């Protein structure tokens, strides 16, 4: 019994790893194809339109563009396996260093937005399911739906205008005021941690002030799904037998909700959390543009416009891995929490 079980676990682990590898390779191949097919010529982007034909050819050689595609791809994968992701043509730095700089910025933003969305979304879903059909339910649903349906760049600009320009409640674009930006050591890349550790007065609260608006905008967009799915899952559970039994036994509404229904709905809820987090990590490209947030979404867009293949591949790799890993973790979590699924 033990051996068979162990073998199954091992087999599942191998499956997972194989899927991961295949997915990443597939993603890289498609991205590489698209990037290579792009009519944007990275050599022109690099040397500019006025450069001599000689400089242009030299740039093409330096970028390895004179090789055939399979050779280029093979070279890339070979280097990547050694941790060398090449040099970005638009920043001139190693892609690896670039990513180390931009990835924490997006992770920090996405994580905080996720935590706030999860808390508020869960709350909305709970209240909505509890007071089903009432005015509060309708209001909550409308608000969260609206948040989900609004173009995020529009919301971002409007909130910048209202809360930053008019009311001065929140700070402006960027992660920190210039007074702090260049005097804080970037140790972890997470601005909250770095400002806390630095001990510079006012830096930490400034970081929060800058985080406020982008988090608000991202949250508004994400709450909708979470609230809706939570509510649906809870409603699905409410109609089940064990709830009737619990109520018959005299348990109060709150207890029924929190101790019985929520754990069983956890499976669906966690799936939504996982999916929403993955989507937030996808770079929140437009949000990062409006708020001048130096994250991986903006890095990727800049790279796309410059046909900067090493940067595109590196950023896609990071995002893709996160996606897949997150999905896997969500799956595992669901299995752990919900005993009905095997």
């Amino acid at each position, binding site marked *: 019994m033990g051996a068979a079980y162990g073998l199954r676990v091992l087999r599942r682990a191998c499956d997972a790893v194989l899927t991961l590898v295949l997915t990443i390779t597939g993603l890289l191949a498609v991205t590489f194809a698209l990037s290579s097919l792009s009519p*944007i010529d990275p050599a022109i982007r690099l040397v500019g*339109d*006025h450069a001599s034909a000689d400089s242009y050819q030299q*740039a093409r050689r330096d970028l390895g563009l004179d090789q055939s595609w399979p050779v280029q791809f093979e070279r890339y994968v070979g280097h990547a396996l050694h941790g060398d992701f090449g040099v970005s043509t638009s920043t001139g*730095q190693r892609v690896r260093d670039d990513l180390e700089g931009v990835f924490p910025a997006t992770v920090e933003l996405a994580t905080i937005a996720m935590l706030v969305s999860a808390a508020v979304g869960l709350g909305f879903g709970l209240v909505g399911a509890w007071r089903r059909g009432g005015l509060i339910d309708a209001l909550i649903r409308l608000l969260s739906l609206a948040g989900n349906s609004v173009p995020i760049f529009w919301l971002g600009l409007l909130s*910048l*205008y209202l809360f930053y320009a008019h009311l001065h409640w929140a700070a402006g674009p960027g992660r920190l005021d*210039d007074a702090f930006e260049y005097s804080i050591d970037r140790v972890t890349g997470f601005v909250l941690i770095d400002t806390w550790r630095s001990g510079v007065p006012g830096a930490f609260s400034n970081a929060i002030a800058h985080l406020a608006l982008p988090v608000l905008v991202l949250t508004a967009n994400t709450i909708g799904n979470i609230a809706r799915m939570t509510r649906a899952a809870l409603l699905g559970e409410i109609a089940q037998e064990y709830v009737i039994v619990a109520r018959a036994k005299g348990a109060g509404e709150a207890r029924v909700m929190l101790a019985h229904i929520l754990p069983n709905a956890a499976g669906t809820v966690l799936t939504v959390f996982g999916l929403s987090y993955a989507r937030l990590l996808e770079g929140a490209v437009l949000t990062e543009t409006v708020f*001048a947030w130096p994250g991986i979404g*903006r890095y990727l867009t800049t790279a796309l416009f410059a046909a900067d293949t090493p940067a595109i591949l590196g950023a896609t790799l990071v995002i893709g891995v996160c996606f897949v890993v997150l999905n896997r973790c969500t799956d595992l979590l669901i299995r752990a929490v919900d005993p009905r699924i095997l």
Partner: protein
Amino acid sequence: MAAEVPGTLVVAQSLDDVVSLDPAEGFELSSVQAFTSLYQRLVQSDPDRPGALRATLASDWKSGADGHSLVFTLRPGAVFSSGNALRPEDVVFSLQRAVRLNRSPAFILNELGWTAGNVDRFLVRIDDLHVGIRWPARVGSAFVLNVLSATVASIVDEQEVARHLVAGDAGNGWLHTHSAGSGPFRIRRYIPHEALVMDANPQAPLGAPLLKTVVIKNVADAASRRLLVEVGDADIARDLGPDQIAALRGKPDLQVLEYPSASLHYLLFNTANRANPVLGNPALWQAARWLIDYQGIAEQLLKRQYIVHQAFLAQGFPGALDTTPYHLDVAKARAILANAGIAPGTVIKLDVFNQPPFNEIAQSLQATFSQAGIRLQILPAVASEVYGKTRARTEEAVWLYWIPDYYDAHSTASAFAMNREDGTQSIAWRAGWHIPELSALTAAAVEEQDPAARAHLYEEIQTQVQRDSPFVIALQERAQLVMRNHVHGYRQGLTADMVYYDRVTR
């Protein structure tokens, strides 16, 4: 409002175009702008007297008798920001590496006939204070001085760079993100696509700057830049749209500054495009000159961010032709087209950059051209894509802008009025315009030593281009920026690199 740091100037602009801060490599608008603050050349444009050169790292120079050489006397006591003294070796090193690295701006030095193979023959250290420069190309010394005032000829601190060399890259890797110059500022930190932080260099020849720090922040979105300067988190905002600037005029804390700029907008027809033969018909080019709503675009659409200018040397450039014989006249255009037998309903594809103000200008063109029966199909695309098409000569019509590469008429003349038919991709070549006599005239102009005669030649060349070419030069940019009132002493010149922070105080 954000915390203010005394002595620090914050500039909000887009830094996304920067490829490298090595003066031998960087050639983008934001890069060359930075070079003026970080590096110095032997001679530079005088910020207070446009068109004149000011001795900077050279204190004097003498022309050689053969007309193909110059001897420069270096400024005594000049030091780099590292403390190293300026030596002739630095001059030789800087110019040689720029030619040998052969990156984007190298073509400027190639105009002197310098190549990677021969450049060491033409740069000579004469003694501790003198350096000799020779050139094989048939160009005059006035031209050479102008070339040496370009940012690619920035003098780099050889000894400092030697400490950061990596196998044969002449310091290019390190200079990507660090500076080793003698300019009024030096790089404290450069984070690509985020910010450039420059500290004052108190030892700068020609005087220390008045500010302690300049922070150039990358804010990609114009609306955000406008907000930053309005709220006070930025002291200067660049590249705002015409409507945003109009809205900010009259705000109590802000001033709108306008500087003439050498950036020209023009329409180009690719006469070599076989797929659409109407493009090769000079009547089309003639008609097009009467089909652009110059005034409407400059005054109303782009709210005076542009002026009407119809010759290839920008107003303010020595020798510029300021006559504007063309205006919107649909009836005239229709007559020209009818006479030439160009039927109404002709379709022409127009490539434009998919960013402001190009898409607005394109749509205005679409409206006016359609009144004469020409249907313009607008194809917006990213800049490098559009340039790629012109290099491959697959475009039909393009709306482009031109900025001179260095402060000499030849830079623009060799583009618009010269087609050497040898593969050199000048603008005339990209339009497939065959002009052997005009090219010869342009070549004679750059060789001419007498300034008055030279100016006269360029006037003649401009007139011909204005009258006969497949280009319609239409607008000249007026650079506008918004500055908070407490900022003083800012100066800006005609070309992209002429941005001066050294006299700024706040």
